[in-house]
């Protein structure tokens, strides 16, 4: 058991990270506006989004609803998307009226080049489903 855990940890730390897609996708589902009008408190975007250079460094926002919406930093029409690539590791602040704080942070981290960085990245990816769901609304 201990050997198995050690093996998995070694794999997570040593095997280079590859990603089939570099897109981190968030969508406003159809019917969101109607649900909001009905009183649902729907959060689509977390106040902080983490991206990783070379792995997942393109933020993709899509408005699938039937009305224009402020989504992330900008106004988006029904059916419209915004594909926003990042090339520099930094913390980006966007004014975002969708959040109570009025601000959204996109934290772009460097490519996980060291074993420790790879391990940390993989653990965080593993734990991500426990946080805000991607690609849809959560209440």
């Amino acid at each position, binding site marked *: 058991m201990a050997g198995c855990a050690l093996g998995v940890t070694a794999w997570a730390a040593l095997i280079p990270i590859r990603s089939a897609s570099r897109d981190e996708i968030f969508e406003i589902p159809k019917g969101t506006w109607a649900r909001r009008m009905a009183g649902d408190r729907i959060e689509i975007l977390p106040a902080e989004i983490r991206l990783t250079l070379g792995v997942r460094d393109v933020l993709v926002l899509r408005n699938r609803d039937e009305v224009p919406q*402020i989504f992330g*930093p900008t106004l*988006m029409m029904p059916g*419209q998307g915004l594909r926003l*690539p990042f090339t520099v590791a930094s913390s980006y602040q966007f*004014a975002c009226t969708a959040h109570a704080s*009025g601000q959204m942070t996109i934290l772009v981290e460097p490519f996980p080049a060291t074993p420790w960085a790879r391990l940390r990245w993989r653990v965080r990816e593993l734990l991500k489903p426990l946080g805000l769901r991607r690609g849809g609304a959560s209440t």
Partner: protein
Amino acid sequence: MLLPLLFFAAAGSGADDASLEAGVFSPPRAAPDFSLRGSDDTELKLSRYRGKLVILEFGFTACPDVCPTTLAALAQARKQLGAEGDELQVVYITVDPERDDAERLRSYLAAFDPTFIGGTGTAEQLAGVRRDYGIAATRTTLGTSYAFSHSSYTYLIDREGMLRALMPYGHAPDDYVHDVRILLKQ
């Protein structure tokens, strides 16, 4: 009501912009027109620049960091573009009509590039333009004065008046040059 109509009218004009450094809208939509007072003391309408590539920025002349940094990058980019720079128009719309009249905008922008044009108007007019473009601007008190927290990105609007891309704050002049050249060729 008008915005969705403009959008659907424009939906067929999208092209592959994956190589842009800026964030790309897909499909692009028609950039909302506006009518403001220009820093050249004439009516400033976006449609005046149809045929040119427009970079649209929102800010205020007392801005301590974001605005001067972006305007300096744009001025440098325009220099780097050489003759192609004549096909680029930077439009800077104030979020602070109380202080930014046409004269103040003119002298402020001339320090970066005399071809840059500013736009001002009533608080209601400017709020309408910000709403059309999804721009946030919040006034904050600073001692006896005030400042604004505002959207820091710029919009890239093509020759046909289509809102094509959004460049986040902090990009280098080279990135603007790269994207302007691509959009001018289309």
